[in-house]
């Protein structure tokens, strides 16, 4: 009797273990009734941003008792889209998600997002440059909550120490172009032993950030309809030859494998979006923000974008869209403008932006943000962007060494990606 008793206890334990294992994967399904929680994936980890989101969400819940806790779930920027799609694949899709411009075509064309046009407040006020990427067949699939132009941050101390004119002086003299910018950076880097101009986030991998340079040559990654590779066009060849020379001959930009943090004072200039200004709050050097230098084709602007979409698959898609409408209403959009340049025409004035951007002067906002959004080209994007980006990255690698044959490398890029574009 003793042994079977022990056996019974053991088998029961085994059964418990087995059921515990099986039950673990279920996750907490929301109760059928009661307030429904909402979750939005974001890539910002900046405390001030998240605090503002939480305040707007709290305000919303006061009038919407049917909505439970609203969570803003930060995912690291580098792996953002990968993590988001993995969550979707795993059946744990968020209700709302930030979407990066590079994956906009995939998300918009796939039908993963719920239509929003009828929900968004005062939709006709949104400027077309901002909404173009998020529209399909006249419907809007994400709210372009951040349309942020690239500008050039300048460490005036390093520029002056090298006896060079500051970009602001060059602008006044009508000489703010890439040739001069490269010369100033080369001189400043040689004098200080620090780095010249850094293209933030590029790191010889995220090549789409180079659009901030090649835009001045009128170059494009591919044709506007996305069907033809334009990497080996004459504009791109000239722009890349300029970049190659600046990096390896003039040493105006740090080479591959070198990290230089402009915001810590390690570089002379940095091409970045205005939201980076927050990093200069405690800067100990004299800094400025100016528009991108003119290229051979004249002045131009490049913008990075982010949209917020509602996942169609979410069981709470309805309440999520309602919350998005509130989150992006004219009133809240003005609050968000503190960090994210709004797509609403009425709010795109230097005065409005100045109220919420204490670190930037009105003329900086006018030149970089407002003029930038008006004439800006969005960074390159395409359906299947992740695979294209990776293929271009690998094909461009031979360019990042001294003595590279620019034209041959660019021909190689097109040879690799043309079959993918044509599909």
């Amino acid at each position, binding site marked *: 009797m003793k042994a079977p008793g022990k056996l019974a206890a053991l088998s029961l334990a085994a059964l418990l273990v087995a059921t515990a294992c099986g039950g673990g994967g279920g996750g907490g399904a929301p109760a059928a009734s009661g307030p429904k929680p909402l979750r939005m994936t974001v890539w910002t980890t900046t405390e001030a941003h998240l605090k503002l989101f939480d305040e707007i969400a709290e305000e919303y819940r006061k009038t919407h008792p049917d909505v439970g806790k609203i969570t803003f779930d930060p995912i690291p920027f580098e792996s953002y889209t990968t993590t988001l*799609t993995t969550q979707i*694949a795993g059946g744990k899709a968020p209700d709302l998600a930030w979407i990066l411009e590079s994956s906009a075509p995939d998300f918009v064309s796939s039908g993963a997002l719920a239509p929003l046009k009828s929900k968004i407040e005062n939709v006709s006020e949104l400027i077309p440059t901002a909404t173009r990427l998020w529209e399909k067949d006249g419907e809007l699939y994400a709210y372009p909550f951040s349309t942020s132009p690239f500008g050039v941050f300048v460490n005036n101390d390093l520029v002056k120490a090298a006896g060079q004119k500051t970009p602001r002086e060059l602008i006044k003299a009508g000489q703010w172009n890439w040739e001069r910018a490269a010369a100033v950076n080369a001189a400043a880097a040689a004098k200080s032993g620090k780095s010249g101009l850094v293209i933030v986030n590029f790191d010889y991998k995220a090549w789409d950030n180079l659009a901030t340079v090649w835009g001045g040559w009128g170059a494009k990654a591919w044709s506007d309809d996305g069907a033809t590779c334009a990497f080996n066009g004459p504009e791109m060849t000239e722009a890349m030859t300029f970049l190659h020379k600046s990096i390896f001959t003039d040493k105006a930009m740090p080479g591959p494998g070198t990290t230089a943090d402009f915001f810590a004072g390690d570089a002379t200039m940095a091409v970045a979006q205005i939201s980076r200004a927050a990093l200069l709050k405690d800067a100990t050097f004299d800094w400025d923000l100016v528009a991108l230098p003119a290229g051979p084709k004249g002045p131009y602007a490049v913008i990075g974008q982010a949209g917020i979409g509602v996942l169609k698959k979410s069981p709470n898609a309805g309440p999520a869209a309602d919350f998005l409408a509130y989150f992006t209403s004219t009133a809240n959009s003005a609050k968000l403008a503190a960090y994210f340049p709004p797509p609403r025409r009425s709010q795109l004035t230097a005065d409005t932006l100045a109220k919420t951007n204490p670190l930037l002067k009105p003329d900086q906002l006018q030149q970089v943000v407002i003029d930038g959004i008006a004439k800006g080209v969005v960074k390159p994007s395409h359906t299947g962007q*992740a695979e294209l980006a990776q293929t271009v990255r*690998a094909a461009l690698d031979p360019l990042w060494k001294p003595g590279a044959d620019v034209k041959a490398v660019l021909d190689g890029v097109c040879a690799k990606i043309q079959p993918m574009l044509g599909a």
Partner: protein
Amino acid sequence: MAVTQLTRRAAGRADHPPPGRARRFWTIARRDALVGYLFVAPQLAGSALFVLLPLGLVGWYSLQEWNVLAGTFEFVGGDNYAKLLADANLRSVLTASALFSAGLVVLNLSLALTLAVLLNQRLRGTTLFRTLFFSPVLVSLVAWTIVWQFLLQKDGGVNGLLAVAGVEGPNWLRGEATAMLSVVVVQVIKNVGLNMVLFLAALQGVPRQLYEAAQLDGAGAWRRFRSVTVPLISPTILLTSIITVVGSLQVFAQIAVLTQGGPGTSTTVLVYYLYQQAFQFRHFGYGATLSVLLFVIVAALTLLQWRLRRRWVFHES
């Protein structure tokens, strides 16, 4: 519960079960066996749930075209396998995997064995060195790799040391050959301690008398190593080589942190390519097909090594 059912079934089979009959079915051997099975049941259930089931699902997914964003899941039969055969990248991916595995196995095993032999001496300070060489095994892989990423930069620590010696170091992670070498060496230093400890244990199991006998026969140090040590630790050589080969085929974090498969595609090994296809490019079906390929390769290599053991494992306890 299971026991009472079994008992009842056993009892029911007999026509007129005398009370003692059922008890006789539960002989001591059977009872012991059942207890044994019950003890391993949680482990088996875990394996079925977390190994066999996912393995089966991977096979099933490899026959599908799964568009995560659109939410479509379509049976495509052998299309993914046809794509695999026609994949122009596969050749470079397999070459990178083979280079990485070969480099890692040769470097890791030879270094581990050398260290083990050196640290098998009864000298002052050997414990300190054993700890020193083993400690990287305990460090978090990603933290370890990130530190090396800084060390291997053009103006990083490694080149700083080389500069002291008057050598201008290369841009380790940006050159095709040096990138692969860097990834291999970072991984070897990380894990060599584990194999070293296994070798040390094996070395200490080699009877002293055999060395003394060999010495009396006039065998030198190299001869003793080749003819006494190696044959007697051959089971451990087999074990460490299997662990290292299988581990080398699964390398991921180091590639993801250090090179992201570059420069070009020179360090895009199979697991990293699989990750790119499935999670970055969202070709989940094709990613599953690549996992099937990885599974076949790992299984084949392990089987091969297992079969070869008859030839080069001289003694098994």
